[in-house]
């Protein structure tokens, strides 16, 4: 059993303490916007916020988030109105789209700390997240656009 906040709601989950947070989010809580990609923290598709920091949910045992506050892509905004989500649409970033929840969640913690990141800062921050379709340059453009509009 673990108790934590997810997207502003307190919940109790009946899961093994070692269960990866990723599977708890996806299959216990049915919040499937957070994706499974590699299971070893190499691709970033599973990125969520834990107490406001980007984290790989595939590497986080659910016991480690006891009492903490989690945000997933579903909780980033109620209606796709987060500046990053709007910028992602304006730049038409997604192709297959599978990595994009993780990309957006990752970018959100950059903008939370740094309102006006340079290109290099964006690249350094986003380098943890893979995209096989090759949308990287549009991701950079979308982060820059969102930064302008925040």
């Amino acid at each position, binding site marked *: 059993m673990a108790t934590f906040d997810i997207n502003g709601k307190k919940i109790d989950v009946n*899961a*093994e303490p*070692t*269960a*990866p947070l990723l*599977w708890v989010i*996806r*299959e*216990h809580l*049915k*919040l*499937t*916007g*957070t*994706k*499974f*990609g*590699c*299971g*070893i923290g*190499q*691709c970033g*598709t599973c990125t969520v916020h834990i107490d406001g920091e980007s984290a790989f949910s595939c590497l986080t045992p659910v016991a480690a988030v006891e009492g903490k506050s989690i945000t*997933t*892509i*579903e909780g*980033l*905004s109620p209606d*796709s109105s987060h500046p990053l*989500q709007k910028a*992602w*649409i304006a730049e*038409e*970033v*997604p*192709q*297959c*789209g*599978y*990595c*994009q*929840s993780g990309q*957006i969640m990752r970018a959100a913690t950059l903008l939370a700390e740094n309102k006006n990141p340079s290109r290099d800062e964006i*690249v*350094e921050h*986003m*380098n943890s*997240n*893979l*995209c*096989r*379709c*090759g*949308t*990287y*340059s*549009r*991701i*950079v453009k979308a982060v820059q656009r969102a930064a302008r509009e925040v």
Partner: protein
Amino acid sequence: MTKLRQGPPHLDRREFIKSTAGITFAISATGFISACTEGEPVAESPPADPLAPNIWVTIYPDDRIQIMYAGTEMGQGSMTATPLILAEHLDADWDNVDVETVAVHDTAFGNFVFANMLYTAGSTNVFAYFKKMQIAGTQARKMLVAAAASQLGVAEEELTTELSNVVHAASGRKLSYGEIVSGGQFPAEIPEVDESEFKRPADYRYLGTDVMRIDVPSKVNGTAEYGIDVQVPGMLFAAIRRTPVEGERPVEVDDSETLKVAGVTNVVTLPNGVAVVGETVEATRTGKDKLKIIWSEESRFRKANTAEQLQEYGVAAEDLSISGTPWAETGDVIEALAGADEVVSATYTTEPVYHAQMEPLNATASVSEDGKSAEIWVGTQTQSLSILGAAQALETSPDKITLHPLTMGGGYGRRSPLRQQYIDDALFVSLAVKKPVKVIWSREDDIEAGKFRTAATQHMRGAFDAEGRLVAVHHRVAAPTILETMNPMRWEAANGKDVITMLGSENTTYDIPNHMAEHVLTDRGSRVLAWRGVGTSYNKFAMESFIDELAKSRGADPFEFRMQLCHKNPRMQNVLQNVADMAEWTRPREGRMLGLAVSGYHRSLSAGIVEISIDDGQLQVHKFWAVGDPGFVVSPSNSEAQVEGNIVMGLSAALKERITIENGRVKQSNFHDYPIIRMAELPEIETKVLSTEYPATGVGELGLAMVGPAIANAIATLTGVRIRHLPLTPDVVSAAIGSGTG
């Protein structure tokens, strides 16, 4: 605006038509509705009935329009581009259009390039369905105009259409398509349409402009539904321990520790693996780690090693006494080589690569008690083959399979074969446990059971005559058949011509009077499958490297040499000139060098230039310029994104990616030892996609194949060392430069 309707429940199109009271349609073999009367005439049908003039479009009284999409979406964008063609010719208001993915195997919806299977591959969707969409949209518009004419009491010639309205300018009256449908009065027969009635390109409202892809909004908020996201009531999960070598089977399974794991419900032995079934994903994964399995040791693949394979393929490629199956032939290459003034030859090798689609493969199935029917949920590139393959697996008929095709977290060919292992897994496990089951492969499973771009070795011979003209190129591709493992029926029908292995080795670019590409058939050493760009990604590496070598052997500039060879191909010359202008081909760079290559894909053309340097033996790629010409461009922004994505994937494959088979096992296991390119490693990429007067062809695989040869050509120009091998990983590059040979 809700355009994306994916996931259960899907309405079978025919059921839908049947359930619409008053109108019954028979779908003819040509794909169009051939009869529309049963019982009451259509004109007297109740006003609430929608209008469905053909299988592709339905117009509702409330102005909603539904368009059927006979492909599947994996990021390429044809779920928007193809229905948009219909909407354009219907003069529909795109904001009120819903797109529905066809979920059945019905040749009426089929892709003519693939024997009317529903098959999303080869970047064919826009090309294959363009005219069908024109006809279907024009036909619906024609019916609406005729009905509006009788409703308004005016001549059809006085009416125009725009944004889902029929307009009578003379009286200022207009009727929305929904109002017209409500009013009935349609002709008893569906009108024929001919090309002269198609909307003129000059009048296009949507085509050629940046209409946003309909799948984008759902991909920024987590609501897009991928196969892995499916939730079916009462379902269990399964993790599979696969045989580490293809062709082996579990001989002894000790599942005692596995069954002690809380949440594990069953262990199911499969023909080529063992499934751990349970109530949670984590239970199945923990249980899988505790399996003790003894595998058989009898497969021929136990001897497979990539390094030996490439050598064996090389021997076959270079041994001219072994004749191959001609794939493409012009003139008489053997005679031309025999009579040549000078012959140049070279051999190129390419190692296997992995699809690395970001969504690990998965499928959900619910098999009936008797095992003879099933419902499946899966991201697939082919409704038809998924249904036929599932029917084969259950030894039942295709009509007993209900498919829910979901959006894909990447495809690149990985989800295209007849028998899809992940679907088989879900079917067999569901059959065994008599419950719906979602099978999720781990990344390690996805690589271990991967089906790769094949290893290949190619031998090239080129001949110049006494005047220094290139008179012959002989291209021998030593590689296995890929078609056979994708779909044995297609291979049987192909007469030895393997489009997957051989595409790109034909010469449609240059004026070379004698050319032959032949397939020297070899045994495969791993599972193989179509990989983005199919054969072009190694065949163009050989051809475009070789063209550069031929140019250099004559002391010619590689750009001028190609322009000269394209003197009968102004379309290609235009692409070449564009990319040369963008990159400023003739401008010298301090310490840096440019390399050029071209790579068409089917009828789409592209050319690319790379700028590199080598510092302390380390290859640095600074910039890539890419120009594409896919004919008429339906979606400019998406087309540029596709070409850029191809360059990114091409850079990744050329610089970083390698699958190694050792004693039948795949050496790599996850992204730490199979790294794909990251954002920080990316050079600047400049892309231009030209919209030209040719028919619209594909962009989904355009440009990838030119990346490898462009880089190898730049290295050769900069260092004098020709590397005839992909990938150009640091070990390969430093070894070649160190030794002075490729």
